[in-house]
């Protein structure tokens, strides 16, 4: 019984890992655009090429977007043409991104470099952020490392190459609600409600990066 339970659990976790690795992870929020989206960028200093319409922000760079906040040490931005959309950003050094999804859950990502691209082709909008260099993305469910990590802002998905993932699911919390009240059992509150002697107090599981 113990062995069957343990194997079932591992299969579920590893299989889940495969799915995460082979498909896009629906972990990040799909952006919901306001009528006019306002993006703020601040920094200590900046350089603007007024002909090429390119800006390089330096030192304590902060980007405040309706869907995301980003900080880094240098940010290169192609300034949009009249009424256009910022279509290319390159953030360098100590890149930190934070966003809150539709459920109010915080998503967090860090990397050495992040490249944002926005493009409309044949009426289809593509909006992606590619993280490279010690890239890590953390959602409410997983912590994901990869080289690179691709965040599709339209689909709200994360895709990682050479990925390494940690599931954050708290089995204790998840299973407590499905069983009888603690007061009616003989199990200590701090432990899980699994049958005694099976698996206790597991709240993290690492999926090897070679599960693809």
């Amino acid at each position, binding site marked *: 019984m113990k062995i069957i339970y343990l194997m079932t659990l591992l299969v579920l976790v590893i299989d889940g890992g495969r799915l995460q690795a082979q498909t896009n992870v629906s972990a990040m929020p799909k952006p919901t655009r306001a009528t006019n989206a306002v993006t703020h960028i601040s920094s200590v*200093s900046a350089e603007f090429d007024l002909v090429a319409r390119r800006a390089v*922000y330096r030192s304590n760079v902060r980007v405040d977007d309706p869907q995301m906040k980003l900080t880094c040490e240098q940010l290169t931005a192609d300034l949009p043409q009249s009424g256009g959309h910022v279509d290319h950003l390159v953030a360098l050094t100590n890149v930190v991104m934070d966003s809150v999804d539709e459920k109010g859950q915080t998503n967090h990502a860090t990397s050495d470099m992040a490249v944002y691209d926005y493009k409309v082709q044949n009426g289809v909008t593509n909006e992606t952020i590619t993280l490279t260099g010690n890239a890590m993305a953390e959602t409410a469910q997983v912590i994901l490392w990869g080289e690179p990590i691709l965040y599709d802002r339209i689909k709200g998905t994360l895709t990682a190459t050479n990925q390494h993932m940690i599931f954050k699911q708290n089995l204790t919390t998840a299973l407590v609600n499905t069983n009888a009240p603690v007061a009616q059992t003989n199990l200590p509150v701090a432990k899980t409600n699994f049958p005694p002697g099976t698996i206790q107090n597991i709240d993290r599981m690492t999926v090897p990066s070679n599960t693809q």
Partner: protein
Amino acid sequence: MKIKLNNTFLVLSAFMALNFIAATVRAQPNTTGHASDFSSVEYFEPPHQQLMKFRLSGAEAQPQAGGLLVINQFKLEMFNTNCTPGLIVKAPNCIYDTIHGVASSPGHLQLESADGSSHVEGDGFLWLQASHNLYISNNVQSVFVTASKGKTGS
């Protein structure tokens, strides 16, 4: 009135001067003059040589020694090759080096797109006319307004 100086045309419009002549953009200015409502224009290279590339203007200019101009209400307008205005730089005042083509100020500066969708502010700037590079030294704040394009994806 336009005077060609190394691909740079200088237009002095409605200026009041005391021996201050417009052709001083690349030459030593008469330092006793004073000008108001002046502008300096540069045109694109061929085949767009008839189109303005940028226009530098000011409400008031006070010539200084060494080819310097102290400009009040400094304004730099960049134009696209389709004649539409592009970026506009404004500063309450600055010093313009007419010999080296450099404008600078420790004061406040605003950069905005002609349609108002982009706006940048900062303190302390340097503008290099030859490369059209603008450096802002401190407190850079940018705002970009983007119209909604819907939520679609491939």
